[in-house]
């Protein structure tokens, strides 16, 4: 663990309607590292991601991005440095793919149209959507939508990207193309924090796996260790359950 992680999360707590969803979560994310967060549903994984960029501000604890505390003051400039990929894609319905990727570059980063277009074209090529620039989101498949939303995040040149169950809304035959894009990103050195049960990604591209349950981190470690000989009985139980699901599915 270095002294200068890109993201430092310390004792983050969050209560929703009287239920403590996050009960003190702490971890670091190093530059270029990709971590995957797994755990049963309702365990606070998505809430954790939303606490990092204050889409859902934590009740207590701290989040430090590249040495700067994430707080309401100046939040827009901080969010611009944190990519966020949603389960439901959340592309802008009324804008073509190219404009989806250009809008925040121009509106938030103040880039010129030419510069924003150049970056958008680069990232859309990277995710394999160069032939869909003029399409509207409703004309894309689920996998294409998610790849467009990844390009939208990448074009902002973020310091890291948070992925909130990026393949959960996709048909099984479409998850592969999104997972491939994510693997390529991880291999290219993008810093990523991924909430997902995509074992393919976890095994091939994650540097570390975080297992969460009941609002706390139960254990974390490299996939080779955590998947083969987890320390906690609860972790192995959960892993058995999801590998089972995947085999049956």
């Amino acid at each position, binding site marked *: 663990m270095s002294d200068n992680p890109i993201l430092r999360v310390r004792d983050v707590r969050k209560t929703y309607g009287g239920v403590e969803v996050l009960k003190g979560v702490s971890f670091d994310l190093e530059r270029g590292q990709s971590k995957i967060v797994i755990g049963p549903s309702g365990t606070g994984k998505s809430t954790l991601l939303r606490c990092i960029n204050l*889409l859902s501000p934590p009740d207590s604890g701290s989040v430090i991005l590249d040495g700067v505390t994430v707080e309401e003051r100046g939040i827009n400039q901080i*969010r611009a440095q944190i990519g*966020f990929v949603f389960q439901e894609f959340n592309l*802008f319905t*009324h804008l073509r793919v190219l404009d989806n990727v250009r*809008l925040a570059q121009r509106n938030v980063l103040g880039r010129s149209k030419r510069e924003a277009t150049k970056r958008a074209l680069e990232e859309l090529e990277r995710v394999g959507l160069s032939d869909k620039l003029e399409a509207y989101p*409703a004309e894309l498949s689920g996998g294409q939508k998610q790849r467009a939303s990844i390009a939208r995040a990448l074009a902002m040149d973020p310091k890291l990207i948070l992925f909130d169950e990026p393949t959960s809304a996709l048909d099984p035959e479409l998850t592969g193309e999104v997972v491939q894009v994510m693997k390529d990103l991880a291999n290219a050195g993008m810093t990523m924090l991924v909430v997902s049960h995509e074992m393919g990604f976890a095994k091939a591209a994650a540097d570390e796996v975080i297992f969460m349950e009941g609002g706390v981190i139960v254990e974390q470690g490299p996939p080779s260790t955590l998947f083969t000989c987890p320390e906690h009985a609860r972790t192995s139980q959960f892993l058995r359950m999801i590998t089972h699901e995947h085999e049956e599915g």
Partner: protein
Amino acid sequence: MVFDTLVAEFPFLLRGLWIGVQLLAALLALGFVLGLTLAVMSVYGHWTLRLFTVVFERIFRGIPEIVLLLLFFYGIGELLPLSPFLAAVLALGLRSTAYQAQIFRGSIQSVAGGEVMAARALGMSRLGAIWHIVLPQALRRSIGPWTNEYSAELKATSLAYVIGVVELTRQASYIVSNLQGNTLTVFAVVAAMYFVVNRLGNAGLYALERKLAVPGFEGRGASS
């Protein structure tokens, strides 16, 4: 002959119609700007702003338009002399504001919240997200319901005749009193004129709706 007189008087009817259309344009424009503002306030505003929008809507949707016209012309006109036309624009325009605010509020609330969240996650401000994401979609969806408002307000302009705006209906009543009868014929012509303007306006709005439709989405007639 009544028809000779009608032909001779037709320019007056046209002039009346022109006044009516100007009144319509002015009151709809006022209602659009203020109604959209109220709608944004009622969805995104502080509770004091939301309370204001509710009170405003209750008042202006709860009073008959003819009473509003009289209140504005004779009431406010006491303190601050208003021309009949201006009084009609204010009375009908503020009432239209209340109705249009409801149209826009509904369509604003129909825009997927996830898209606003995505915009905020990219670093866009709240206002930026409303301006670039919510309003372009909400306004497209408002065109259909807005045709109702257009039709209703076109007909409401005829009420301005009670405070002395010389619009189409008032021109017609002048002609009727000159002709001493033939009321039916004159008002049939007037009815046809309102009908044509209503149809033209609605045809234009439907064309706009089709032109702005986002491809891939089911629009009017897409499923038939």
